[in-house]
């Protein structure tokens, strides 16, 4: 199979993964591996901005300590941080050229055997999410054609992250929705229980439930659950609460 076919297949595979539930770390790790196998990078990593704004490594093509350390450093300085902050591509940089923009990062990279690297921002419209970093043991810049592919990978990574976040939010809202509904159901059932025990209508039953919870500083849902389970003294409901009920 030609390399172009490989690239296209990779993109299609990754786009397919986005459709359903997926593990974003898995997807990004796969993407860093493809940067190595298809683009000739020696190592690759994806760093994402945490809620506090700092960059953290989320996926890398290898778990080698020397590589992880290189990414950790970039929370302070390095191509990833620059690409993330500016939202622009950080061009190929020869770490050995001296007077590097990132003295600590460059020195550590050289010690680890890397001679050059570049970074692409991960962004979707105005949102800056992080950066994709390609590192190379060679001094020569990555060919332009490979850069185009790297750009496509970075865009897909950004999309996957945004979709993942939207999906987490949808999950949260749905749980909240069904949780709220369940609480409400428990309260309605308790109203029925109290109404029958105290021989009052449902509105009075609710008022007794509420009064009981307020006087003891308990959550309404907890008292309602106890009323259903019968763990409260049933006589609690036969004495009306203070004040007129509506």
């Amino acid at each position: 199979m030609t390399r172009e076919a490989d690239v296209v297949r990779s993109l299609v595979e990754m786009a397919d993964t986005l459709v359903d539930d997926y593990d974003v770390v898995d997807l990004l790790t796969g993407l860093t591996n493809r940067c190595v196998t298809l683009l000739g990078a020696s190592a690759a990593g994806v760093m994402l901005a945490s809620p506090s704004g700092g960059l953290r490594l989320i996926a890398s093509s290898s778990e080698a300590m020397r590589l992880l350390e290189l990414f950790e450093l970039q929370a302070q300085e390095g191509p990833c941080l620059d690409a993330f902050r500016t939202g622009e591509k950080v061009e190929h940089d020869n770490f050995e050229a001296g007077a590097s923009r990132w003295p600590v990062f460059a020195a550590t990279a050289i010690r680890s055997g890397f001679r050059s690297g570049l970074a692409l921002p991960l962004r979707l419209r105005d949102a800056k999410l992080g950066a994709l970093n390609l590192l190379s043991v060679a001094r020569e810049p990555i060919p332009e054609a490979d850069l185009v592919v790297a750009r496509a990978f970075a865009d897909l990574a950004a999309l996957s992250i945004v979709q993942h976040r939207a999906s987490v939010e949808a999950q949260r809202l749905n749980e909240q929705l069904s949780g709220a509904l369940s609480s409400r159901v428990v309260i309605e059932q308790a109203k029925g229980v109290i109404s029958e025990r105290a021989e009052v209508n449902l509105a009075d039953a609710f008022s007794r439930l509420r009064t009981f919870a307020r006087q003891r500083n308990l959550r309404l849902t907890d008292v309602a659950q106890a009323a259903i389970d019968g763990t409260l003294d049933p006589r609690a409901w036969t004495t009306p609460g203070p004040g007129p009920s509506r």
Partner: protein
Amino acid sequence: MAGDRLHRILTVVSTGGEPWSSTRLCRACPELVGVSGAGIMLMSGDVPRGSLAASDDVSHLIEDLQYTMGEGPCVDAYQQDRVVIEPDLADPAAPRWLAFTPRALRAGVRAIFGFPLRVGAVRLGALNMYRNAPGLLSDDQHADALVVAEVTARWVLEMQSGAPSRTLARELEIGADFHFSVHNAAGMVSVQEGISVTEALIRLRAFAFSQDRLLADVANGVIARRLRLG
């Protein structure tokens, strides 16, 4: 194209200038998808929780029947996470739902469709659409229905996103029918019969089924103390 469909759907739902509501979404379905009516059923934990909206009485009955019987196109669409298509309920070769089908037919339903409501991997319920004549949806109508389902699902979550935690968004509670009276009745029956609330719910369902009545109807009888099970 999906974008064109979405545009058309949003235009139809927005005409008239009334604020958006789930009922409006349902009422737009006849024009958008060429069906007789539509309803939105919310589900969680594999069971119907209630009807969010319905375009007409028949759609409302379709929702109530499914709530009472625990079976039907929405229940299948949600549980199996796929589109459910029944082009002719009267076809004896396809009696899919033993309890639901004869009652739906009696109400004038001939074809019925269930579309899962989902956002990504999150499942919220199902959108049901019916026709008073047999027949499949055209490819175009089917594609439109999928977009309506998608818009509906996002709309539900969007509404809930404004609610304080532990509470149901007002927009979802107004107009929706979560069958609270059934739960009131279950509480009462549990005391009357000395059984758990869960068991009381099952007894209420069984009673409704055996008397060929809707669950809400039976519940109202219990609440008004006109009716006692057992």
